[in-house]
């Protein structure tokens, strides 16, 4: 659960089916074959990146600038969920150089042995990073760095400025009876559970009272207009006025506002919201580890970040120098430096398999009730 642009054209259905077929065939016969299919011959002139589609690393101008500086071509492959990312890394060992890993998933990838330690000496911008992200135990294991902090963001509440003249500062607005059939949340078990945990005053990552969380989510039913699944989906439905209030990603909210000129307001409720950050990791047995270090260094550079943030809209950089380099007129500069709001955030931590399954079952059960 992160603030990502997901495949604009892509339907979850199609992608999921493709993923399923790919996975199923991998299970059948592909496991033995895939390593031979990697294009190792091109490895030295190529950096293979695994990321969400349209999430910074695949901007055309950036890749041109990177090629100019290093002579390396960047090739992309995409995932549509973090579990798909892990599955891809497991089924294609040695196929990827740079992988964008969420803070809550970097540890899992480390544990599964699908990413390798990063030689931070090769990443000259590493020292500039905000220590609270850079040295986070979520990215560092046993004194080794498995992920370079890249960007961070918030999952909080977006609202229509056409409808709300006053900012809805309380998370309870989502449950307010006035908003019947005007609310949307993402169809995502962890995000839903996290928000309900915050609303019931619990630790978002490890809520102790799941019954309370479930009750809170069930209470959302009369207000729910729809469950959104991708940024593209969100923009289309928001524009069609399918809902006015939604749990949404900060980076996406800024993009909806600046790129699509939608009347979107964004607030971190008094009760708190979800914080996340993304790391850049290097795949185990990466075909071009040297190129991967160069690409990671480029990704955390102020020049690249400023261009990404101003041209396209981006989450906040984990590099304070990059944030400082933003023009003062940039809405994200003020937005992400609201220290009081940041203090209210709870950051995503890795979940155990059991917690993941429990959250998933709880959400499936709640959705079943929604459908009644």
């Amino acid at each position, binding site marked *: 659960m992160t603030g990502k642009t997901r495949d604009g054209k892509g*339907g*979850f*259905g*199609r992608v*999921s*089916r493709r*993923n*399923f077929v790919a*996975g*199923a*065939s991998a*299970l*059948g016969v592909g496991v033995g074959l895939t390593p031979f299919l990697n294009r190792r011959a091109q490895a030295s002139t190529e950096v293979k990146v695994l990321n969400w589609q349209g999430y910074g690393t695949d901007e055309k101008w950036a890749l041109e600038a990177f090629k100019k500086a290093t002579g390396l071509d960047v090739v992309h492959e995409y995932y*549509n*969920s973090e*579990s*798909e990312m*892990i*599955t891809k890394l*497991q*089924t294609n060992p040695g196929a990827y150089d740079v992988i964008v890993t969420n803070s809550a998933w970097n540890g899992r990838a480390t544990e*599964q*042995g699908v990413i390798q330690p990063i030689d931070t000496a090769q990443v000259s911008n590493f020292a500039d990073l905000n220590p609270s992200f850079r040295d986070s135990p979520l990215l560092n294991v046993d004194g080794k760095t498995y992920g370079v902090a890249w960007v961070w963001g918030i999952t909080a509440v977006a609202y229509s400025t056409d409808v709300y003249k006053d900012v809805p500062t309380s998370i309870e607005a989502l449950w307010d009876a006035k908003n019947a059939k005007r609310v949307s949340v993402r169809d*995502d*078990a962890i995000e839903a559970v996290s928000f309900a945990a915050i609303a019931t005053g619990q630790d978002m990552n490890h809520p102790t009272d799941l019954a309370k969380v479930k009750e809170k989510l069930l209470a959302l039913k009369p207000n*729910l*207009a*729809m*469950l959104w*699944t991708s940024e593209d989906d969100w923009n289309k439905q928001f524009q*069609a006025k*399918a809902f006015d209030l939604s749990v949404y990603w900060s980076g996406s909210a800024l993009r909806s506002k600046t790129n699509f000129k939608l009347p979107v307001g964004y607030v971190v409720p008094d009760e708190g919201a979800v914080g996340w950050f993304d790391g850049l990791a290097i795949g185990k047995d990466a075909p071009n580890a040297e190129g991967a270090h160069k690409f990671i260094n480029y990704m955390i550079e102020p020049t690249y970040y400023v261009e990404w943030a101003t041209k396209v809209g981006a989450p906040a950089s984990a590099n304070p120098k990059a944030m400082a380099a933003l023009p003062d007129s940039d809405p994200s500069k003020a937005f992400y430096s609201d220290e009081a709001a940041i203090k209210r955030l709870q950051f995503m931590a890795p979940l155990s398999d059991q917690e*993941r*399954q429990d959250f*998933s*079952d709880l959400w*499936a*059960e709640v*959705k*079943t*009730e*929604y*459908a*009644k």
Partner: protein
Amino acid sequence: MTPTTRTRWAILSLTGPAYLWLACTIFLPIAAMLALSFLDKSPLVPKPASFTLANYGAFFGKPFYWSLTRWSIELGFWVTLFSFLIGYPAAYALAKRVKGRWREAIFLLIVLPFWSNALVRIFSWTMVLRSNGIIDLGVQSIFPGAPTVDLLFTYPAVVIGLVHSYLPYMILTCYIALQAIDDSLIEAGRSLGASKLTTFRRVVLPLSLPGIISGSALIFVPVIGSFMEPRILGGTKGATLGMNIEEQFTVTANWPLGAALSFILLAIVLIIFGVLYPFLRKQGGAA
């Protein structure tokens, strides 16, 4: 006549490749999934997996799976019923009323939806069904001030989308069955004094039953496993077991549970057809 060695060889060499192909592409993956459904973790996890029945136990232990299963079956029932109600008369008209070049043209129109991507079809329906969509604007222009027609994210929207996707199966199978009925049988019924309705009920309908059954099977089975249409057109109202299975593979990465749920769904389909088969065969045979 018993087949000679030569004809046996001919049969083997002609059917062998097909069976080999089916074994590799259907039997092996299904067998792998069946084995997977009894494991306690995905084989992609680099830890030894062990045998368990917990995945099947999860289905029987959690009531929401029952609701999802019931809704999937109900959805299959409604979509099959509406496909029959719309498709059968169309097939009848094509087989018994329309002749010559018109028939080809109409056939083409029926098959046409198959030529477009399923996802494109479904997303086009979202534009038609939503408020301010094509239906809504049409109604508003004829009856200004009429209540807004917003079918998107409702159960009927899911049924509409699925009927549209699967209707050609029903038309084609019924058409083949209806076309095979000798017109002289209908004439014989009429000349012996049966009314049009009686002729239809006693002659045409029983003789076309195999077409209806195969059409229904072709529709019912994929619909109860559907997940894409319910999600896009149904919003929160489109919960099916198929969606939950899909999430086990793509979101939770719990392949064993997804596989177990798939096999439960398969078993339900087999039970339904097992129960209905003798009854349907009797009906068909009694004609």
